[in-house]
């Protein structure tokens, strides 16, 4: 498996078939005397911004931290809960139970549902 070509930046789809972000980062686990293995994938703006500029990512993380517990750090999904097919990385979980849709939910509850016709 070629991680950068085949996993990084892939579309993520949750178990309800919804598009749930992209693989913004990959976390490898280094093991003594054994080859490293993929431990997690990371999703979200903090990881994405870090690929351009670490300072930008830190700045965003500080802002994100205010929104509650578990925020302000990159969101990680264990590699064991991901299966890959031709089109996407599929999660065996509902993305609603993760911070992936946090902004989406916030926008829906605070803005979209207050606009006419929604």
């Amino acid at each position: 498996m070629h991680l950068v070509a085949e996993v990084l930046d892939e579309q993520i789809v949750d178990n309800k078939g919804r598009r749930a972000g992209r693989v913004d980062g990959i976390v490898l686990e280094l093991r003594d005397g054994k080859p490293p293995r993929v431990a997690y994938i990371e999703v979200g703006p903090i990881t994405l911004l870090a690929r351009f500029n670490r300072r930008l990512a830190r700045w965003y993380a500080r802002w994100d931290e205010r929104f509650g517990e578990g925020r302000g750090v990159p969101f990680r999904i264990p590699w064991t809960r991901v299966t890959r097919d031709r089109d996407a990385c599929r999660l065996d979980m509902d993305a609603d139970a993760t911070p992936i849709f946090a902004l989406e939910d916030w926008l829906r509850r605070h803005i979209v549902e207050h606009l006419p016709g929604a």
Partner: protein
Amino acid sequence: MKKVLQITLGIVTSVGGFLEIGSITTAAQAGASFGYQLVWAIVVGTICIAFLVEMAGRFAAVSKRTIPDAMRERFGINFFAVPLVVMFAVSLLVLAAEMGGIAAALEMATGISLPVWAIPVGLVAWGLLWRATFSVIENGVSFLGLVTIAFAVGAARLHPDYGAVLRGMAPTLPRSNATHYWFVAVSVLGASISPYLYYFYSSGAIEEKWDVTYLAANRLIAGIGMSFGGFLSVAVLVLAAILFHPRGVDVQHYQQLPGLLTPIFGRAGFWLVIASLGVACLGATLEIALAIAYLIAQGLGWNWGEDLEPRDDARFALTYTLLVAAAALFVLAGVDPLELTQISMSLTAASLPVGVFPFLILMNDKKYLGGHTNGYAGNAVVLVISLLAAVLGVVSIPLEIVGG
């Protein structure tokens, strides 16, 4: 039978959706300033966009991916950020120009000045995006866009010198005013080869769940639809060449546009131009707002879809909402839609390779297209024309600005 209907519908919508403020004004300017000499720019631009649209449809049907989707996946975020930012910026200017076009049509129809229309136009466009499904937007507005056929009828009524029109199809060097000639040529190319058009088309193919059985239909829609669209642009150029050029009239104000049809149809001609401009720009407004929102949503992996309710893709829906609001500010500020069109069309041409080159790499990738990758001809045509447009753009834009 269903396929035949779909192909007809596809062709009709591409014809109805081809003209917008960019192609109408740049073609009118080309005809007014240079007679039939710049017909080639429309022909070259139309050939290029026909190839690009065919590729975009083929890519989506075979790989089940939109263009931004695959670009992010194939090249990574650091590279993808470049076309994302460039196309976002240029398309936003085009969006503002199109909304200005609707406002200009309303101003000419009512006498109420253009900036007053910014908010009503923004609200109507937003309301349609918010409530309507993809097919309503694509088919409904494009059907109304068939009113632009009036330009072809008008041009035929004037009995143009068809030999001279044909001769204009061969690119020639300027006989006078070289800087302006190349600048108008670049604007015409930018107006014809709008990146939003093929990006929108690839998302449309995914929204409508195309597969490989659509490849033949796709080829017909792209080829015939775009040719007829280009034909309408040529009609506008011919009208301006006959009615404006001999009198030395340059197209510098949108108020001059009704003069393309009033000498032929009288008062009805005035309303035909107003309707064409208004409807065509409304269609383009909706498509561009969606195209930019698609670009961002797909690049970042958000849930997206014009057929979803806004509550199911809040980020996507709010993105086009903000885009329409931002573009409306240009109109509200009283920016002249014609100047904005010229600037945005020439910038479109100058920045073409930024979107086109990575797309060509995707079109030659067997991982996405299997046995349906590009042939030599398609690659060569699109590569040469987009490079030509970019080089001409980069050279002529500064010269035009310096020369006023």
